C-alpha cells in the first residue's frame, strides 16, 4: 500500500478556542492530520471530544484560532465569500440529522437543481437536467418520478439521508465530510447508506472523512482511524492497527464500550 499518496487536506497545529479567560474552552487542541486523496479516514471520539468542532473548522464554517490548513498542499484561503464558495466546490458534508439538513420551503427538485447549477450546469437544457437528476436518484435507489414535486420532509429519515448522497453524487466534491451520517437512522437503513457511500467512493475516488462515535462503524469502513480525546488526537494509524491492537487506554475503553455479540461484553468497567 506504500504507493504514491497525495495529501489533499493537511492540518498543522489546528486549534479552536471558544470563549476567553475564565470561560475558555479549548475544543480542538493542536491537532495535526493528513488526509490523502482517495482515502477513507475516520475521526472517533465520545461526545464532547471536539469532533464536530473540528469538522466545522475543516468545512470553513468557523475559523480556526491557531494553526494552518493546507488544501491541495496550498494554504487554504477562505477570506472572502467567493473564495469560500470555490472551496466548498471541493469539500462537501453530510450531517447527522437529515431532518434539519434541508430547507423546508424548497422542493426536492430545487435541492438537486442547485447542485447541478453549482457544478456549472446552469446552461443545460431542462431535459438534460432532468436526466442528471434522475441518474442521481437512481444511484441511491430512489425513484425520481416519486421524488419530483415533493418536499424533503415527506421522506423518511433513511430516504432523506440517501437524497443527501444523491446531492453529493451530483456535486462530485474532492472531499466528503460525513458527520455521524448514520446515527439518526436505524440499523437496517444504516447498511444501505454505508453501501451507497462506499459505492460513491469506488466510482469517483473521493476522499471521505467519517466522524463518528461508533468505533465498529469506523472499523468497518475506514482505511485510517484517528482517535480523539478532549480535543487531541491520542492515537492514529490504519484501522486494523488501531482497533485490533489499541495502545492507548482511551481507545481500549471506546472499543470495550461497544456491545458485542461474539465476545463477552464486560459491563463492570463503567
Amino acid at each position, binding site marked *: 500500500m506504500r504507493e504514491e499518496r497525495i495529501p489533499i487536506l493537511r492540518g498543522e497545529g489546528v486549534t479552536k478556542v471558544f470563549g476567553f479567560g475564565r470561560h475558555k474552552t479549548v475544543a480542538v487542541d493542536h491537532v495535526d492530520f493528513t488526509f490523502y486523496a482517495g482515502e477513507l479516514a475516520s475521526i472517533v471520539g*465520545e*461526545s*464532547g471530544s471536539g469532533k464536530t468542532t473540528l469538522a466545522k473548522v475543516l468545512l470553513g464554517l468557523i475559523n480556526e484560532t491557531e494553526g494552518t490548513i493546507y488544501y491541495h498542499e496550498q494554504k487554504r484561503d477562505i477570506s472572502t465569500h467567493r473564495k469560500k464558495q470555490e472551496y466548498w466546490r471541493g469539500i462537501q458534508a453530510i450531517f447527522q440529522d437529515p431532518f434539519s439538513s434541508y430547507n423546508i420551503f424548497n422542493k426536492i427538485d430545487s435541492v438537486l437543481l442547485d447542485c447541478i447549477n453549482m457544478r456549472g450546469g446552469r446552461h443545460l437544457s431542462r431535459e438534460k437536467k432532468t436526466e442528471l437528476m434522475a441518474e442521481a436518484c437512481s444511484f441511491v*435507489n430512489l425513484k425520481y418520478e416519486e421524488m419530483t414535486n415533493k418536499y424533503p420532509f415527506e421522506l*423518511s*429519515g*433513511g*430516504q432523506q439521508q440517501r437524497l443527501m448522497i444523491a446531492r453529493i453524487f451530483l456535486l462530485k466534491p474532492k472531499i466528503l465530510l460525513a458527520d455521524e451520517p448514520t446515527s439518526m*437512522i*436505524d*440499523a*437496517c*437503513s*444504516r*447498511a*444501505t447508506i*454505508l*453501501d451507497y457511500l462506499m459505492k460513491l467512493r469506488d466510482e469517483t475516488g473521493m476522499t471521505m472523512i467519517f466522524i463518528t*462515535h*461508533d*468505533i*465498529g*462503524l469506523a*472499523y*468497518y469502513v475506514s482505511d485510517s482511524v484517528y482517535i480523539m480525546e478532549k480535543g487531541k488526537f491520542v492515537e492514529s494509524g490504519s*484501522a*486494523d492497527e488501531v*482497533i*485490533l491492537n489499541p495502545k492507548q487506554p482511551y481507545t481500549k*475503553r*471506546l*472499543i470495550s*464500550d*461497544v*456491545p*458485542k*455479540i*461474539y*465476545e463477552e*461484553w464486560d*459491563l463492570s468497567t*463503567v
Partner: protein
Amino acid sequence: MGKVILEVKDLTTKYVTRFKEDVYAVDHVSLKVEEGKSLGIAGESGCGKSTLALSLMGYYFPPLHYMSGEIIIDGRNISTMKPDDIRKSILGTEIAYIPQAAMNALNPTQRVIRFIEDVIQAHYPEKTKKEIYELACYSFETVGLSREVLNKYPVELSGGMKQRTVIAVSTILFPKVLIADEPSSALDVTSQKMVIKMLRDLMEKGIIKSMIFITHELPLLYNVTDDIMVMYAGQIVERGTAREAVFDPLHPYSKGLMGSIIVPEEGLRSVKLTAIPGVPPNLKNPPAGCRFAERCKYVRTECRVLNVQLKELDGSGRAYRCVYSEEELRRAYKNA
C-alpha cells in the same frame, strides 16, 4: 417458570389519520413478561415498536385508539380502564416509561427536585417534601448520580446525566414493568454502556421487576435482554431467546437484520453488510398475505395470498410467522 408480570393478549391498536383512514400500527400482538426477565423488541423505524410501547401503558389519546385485546399487569386488566384512572393508579407505580427523547422530557424551567415532587405528589399527596427528598436521594444513588443534581436545572446536565435523571425519576415509585424506548440511541457509546449497566442494576436490586427494551440495535439487545421479539409492519414476525434470535433467526426478516450488524470484532471487515432492499409497506392498506413478501428473497406465490399466523415451535416460546417450515428455512439459509 416465574410469575407473569405483564401479559398481553391479541392487542390491536390503530391510528386514525386526518382523513379518517385507519392505520393498524399494532396488529394482534401477544406477549408475556415474567418476573425478573426482560424482553427486547427489535425492528426498523416505523414498524410499530414505539406504538406498542405506548399501547402497553393503556394510556390512549387521539390519534391512537384502542381496538381489541387485553393488557394484564399482575393479574389486573387495564385495557378497559379510563385514561384518568390509568394515569393515577397505573403509570409510575405499575408501569413506567422512558421515552426516546428523554433529553426533552424534563422541564427546563424547573429544578429536578421540583419535577420529582410533582411526580410523587400526583400519586401520594400525603408525602412531605422531606420524605420526597429522601426518596429522591435514594433513587439517584442507585443510578450513580450525586444529590447535587437534584438542585440543578436540566440545562446544566449533560446528555447522559439527563438520561439517567429520567430513569431515576421513572423508577422512583418502584414500577413493576419498565418500558425503555430507545433509551440510548441519542447517547454516545460510553454513556450508553452506563445506562445499560444502570438498567441491569435496577433489575438486580429488584427496584423494577421486569423490563421491556426497545431498540433497533441487535447487538445491544442481545447483551441486555433475555428474550427478543422482532416486529415488522405492526406484527410480530419472530420470538425467541436472545441467543436464538441473533444466532439462529428463522424468519427471513430477522435473518436480514442480522446482516446489518456492525461490531468492532476481528473479521468484520471481510464481511459485507447486506441491507434488506426496499421499504416497509404502507400500513394504511397493508398488502394481502405476508407483509414482508415484497422484500423477501425466498418469496413464493402463496406468500402473497396466505395470511400466515404466528407458528409456535414445540412449547419453548419460540415462534415465527412464515409459510415455510423450519427445515425449509434452515436449508434455504444454508444454501445462501
